[in-house]
Structures are given as C-alpha cells and as structure tokens.
C-alpha cells in the first residue's frame, strides 16, 4: 500500500516537472516570436528611408519651377518654367557678394514649398533636413547656401519619458543660416551634433557645381557644393541637446513667417 502511494506521488511530481519545463519552453517561444523579424522590419524601414531620400533629392533638383515667383506649375498662365537646380544656380551666381552668399529669400521660399510638397507623405512620421553646402570652406562667405530643417516638437514639457501627449505634437519648418560666433565652420556644431542625436537616419547626397559671378566683366567662378537630404523617424529633441534653433550656431527662423528668411 505504501509502495503504491509512493508510485502515485512520483508520477504526479514527474508530470508537474514536465509542465514546468513546457511552460518555460512556451515562455521562451513567446519571447522569441515577439522579437522575430524586428531586425528585418528595421532593415526594410531603413531601406525605404534611403530609397525615399534618394528619390526625393532627384525630384527636388530635377523638378520644374515657374520662373516668376507667385506663379504655380499647375496654372495654365504660367509661361516660363525651368529646372529647380538651374534656378538655384542662377540665383546663387548673382547673390550679393557681401559675405551673405545665400540664396535669395524668394528662392528659399520656392525651394521650401517644393521640398515640403515632395516630403509631404513622410512629414508626419519623419523629420528631415535639406541643405546646400559649399565644400570649399570659404572664409569670406557663408558655408550653407541653404538649409531647411523640418522638425517635430512637443508643446507640452517632456520629462524623462520620450512620449509627447496626444495632440501636443507639432511639426515646424525652419530656414537656417548656420554660423558660429567665432567664425569657424558650423558643420560640426550643427549637422554633426544633430546626427549624433537622431536614430536611423537615411541620407542622400549629390555633388553640384554652383558658380559665382563677381562682376559682369569677369568670368564666373566655379563653386563646388553638395546638396543633401537627410531624414529620420520623428523624435522630440530636447532643447538642452540641440540648443535653441533661433540662435547661434543654427540661426534659424520659422519658415511659416513672412519675415523669414531675412534678406
């Protein structure tokens, strides 16, 4: 009788151990399934970001724009049109030679509306940066002929949590003129600093040749430059990390305002 009882207890203990092992295996399987494909999914998203950036850059530069500000491509009355890149080159060639060798405010506005329209499908989920940058590091002129920053912000104060309360998120476009107070290159304090803070950015860069006409008598001087677009999943950057975009080194203004960019 005692022997029989012991046998029964051994069997149920074995079964309970079996249940324990199976439960542990099932938990592991659940954990594995939850993680399954995350890397592939990230890779697909990254690939989409890179493809979008490269397509967007081509579309921005090769798309047509009306020659006269205020006209629209869709209007039948629009008589003169040109490639946007050609318009940028022409505008830059005759930009004031006073150290402010940036695109004219009208051209900056045109470029802004084109970029915003082309980036619209991603503008809610992604932040982006478009810039035209001189690679010859001029000491007597602006490094950046143009810089547009589309960035997400949160009206509410975000503490340790990175989530912005629903309805508090905003997207703003800034036109910037990066420049350090010391007169040194602003690339490291702006672009490099920003790149360090953003995750999974996708970038597309194209070399372009601008030119500069000093006066009507001399031949135009070639200016090597780069046009680039960088996009990343929208993140709420804290001001202590990026500094105030309105002040140095970013020197941005709100692109939706009429006074922006300053002439």
């Amino acid at each position, binding site marked *: *009788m005692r022997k*029989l009882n012991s*046998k*029964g207890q051994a*069997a*149920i203990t*074995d*079964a*309970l151990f*079996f*249940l324990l*092992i*199976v*439960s542990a*295996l*099932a938990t592991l*399987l*659940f954990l*594995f*399934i939850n993680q*399954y*494909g995350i890397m*592939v*999914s990230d890779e*697909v998203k990254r*690939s*989409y970001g890179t*493809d*979008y950036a*490269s*397509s*967007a850059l*081509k*579309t*921005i530069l*090769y*798309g*047509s724009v009306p020659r006269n500000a205020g006209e*629209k*491509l*869709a209007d039948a009355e629009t008589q003169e*049109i040109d*490639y946007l890149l050609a318009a940028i080159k022409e505008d830059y060639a005759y930009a004031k030679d006073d150290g402010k060798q940036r695109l004219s405010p009208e051209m900056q506005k045109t470029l802004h*509306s*084109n970029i915003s*329209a*082309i*980036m*619209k*499908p991603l503008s809610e989920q992604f932040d982006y940066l478009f810039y035209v940058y001189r690679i010859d590091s001029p000491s007597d002129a602006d490094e950046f002929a143009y810089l547009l920053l589309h960035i997400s912000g949160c009206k509410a104060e975000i503490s340790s949590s990175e989530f912005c309360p629903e309805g508090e998120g905003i997207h703003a476009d800034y036109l910037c003129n990066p420049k350090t107070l010391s007169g040194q290159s602003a690339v490291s304090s702006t672009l490099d600093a920003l790149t360090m803070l953003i995750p999974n950015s996708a970038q597309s860069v194209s070399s372009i040749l601008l030119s500069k006409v000093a006066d009507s008598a001399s031949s135009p001087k070639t200016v090597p430059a780069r046009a680039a677009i960088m996009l990343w999943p929208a993140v709420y950057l804290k001001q202590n990390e990026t500094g105030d975009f309105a002040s140095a080194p970013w020197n941005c203004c709100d692109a939706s305002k009429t006074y922006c960019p300053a002439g």
Partner: protein
Amino acid sequence: MLEKKRKGFLGPIGDDLPSLVPLVFALIIFFSTFTYAMNSMDSRNEDFDADLATLGIARIMRSNGYITGYEDFRRLCGNINVSGLNYEVALVETELTYDESNYAGYEDQRFSGVDILDLRIFDSTPNIKDDEEDRKASEFFCSNIPISELPELIEIGQRLSSRVFPIVLEDAKIAKPMFLVVITWRP
C-alpha cells in the same frame, strides 16, 4: 487488507490518472504555443515578402528617377516581374501640379495628399474622353490583374503593403514632381 488494497487500486493507469492532468495540460500549452508561433512566423514572413516585393517594384519603376512620358511608364511597368502577389502602380500628383479641374469626377476635388484608398491617378489627357473599352488607357496606372477584376482596396485591408516615392514625370515639356504609389497584396 487485501480487500482494502484492491478498493483503492484502480489499476496501473488508473493510479496515475491524477498525473495525466498536468501532462495533458502541458501538451496543450506546448502545441498551442507552437502553432501560434508557426502562424505568427508565417504571417510575418509573408508581410516581409510583400514589403520587399513592394520595394522591388518601386525600384524598377523609379529606375533613374525620371519618367520621360507615358510610353516610358508603360515600358517600366512591363519590366515588373512578380509572382504570387497582386500589385497596382500609379502616379499621383503633388500639390505643386495639382489642378482641381482635372478631378471633376470626385466628390471633393481639393488636393488631399496621397490616399491609397482614394487614389487620384494622374491622367495626362484628362479632358479627352477615353473610349469605354479602354477607358483608362491614358492614366498612369498599371497592375498585373485586369482593371475590371481589381478589388476595392478597402476590402483587402490588412493584407495591403504600400509605399510612396517622389518621382519626376516629364509631361507637356514640364518636369513635374509626382508621387509613385506602389500597392501590393496577397491574392
């Protein structure tokens, strides 16, 4: 004593009957988790395949990022070779070139961005009535299934995978910024 013993003893299996409960329970847990895991993996793999196929189709269509016209668009469509998936490719206008008068057939003619459930496919000759048999011949649209058999995308719901890319289309000697929309779904 012997009688007592026989009363409590239910036989070799009967005596282990209580231990069968956790055993069966464990087997149920194991097989349901295993089935769930397999189904989940299959579903995710199919999603990835659809996403990759969508990106692949978009790469073919984007080519060098510049479509020179309707013939070029048809040529690029002809290069798509996808099996096991249905797809739709369309060009949609950006707000830069959007002209409300070309979309008179829509309830709300205003530009509404890219809505894959209400695609406003670009037609290079919107004012010319296409004949009934080939009614969408001038629209920048292609698919691997006949137009008459195209399902309503809203019915396909979660099986859809879609991507939007900017692209330049040369139309009436204007390099128009457009959106290339690629939608795939499993049949």
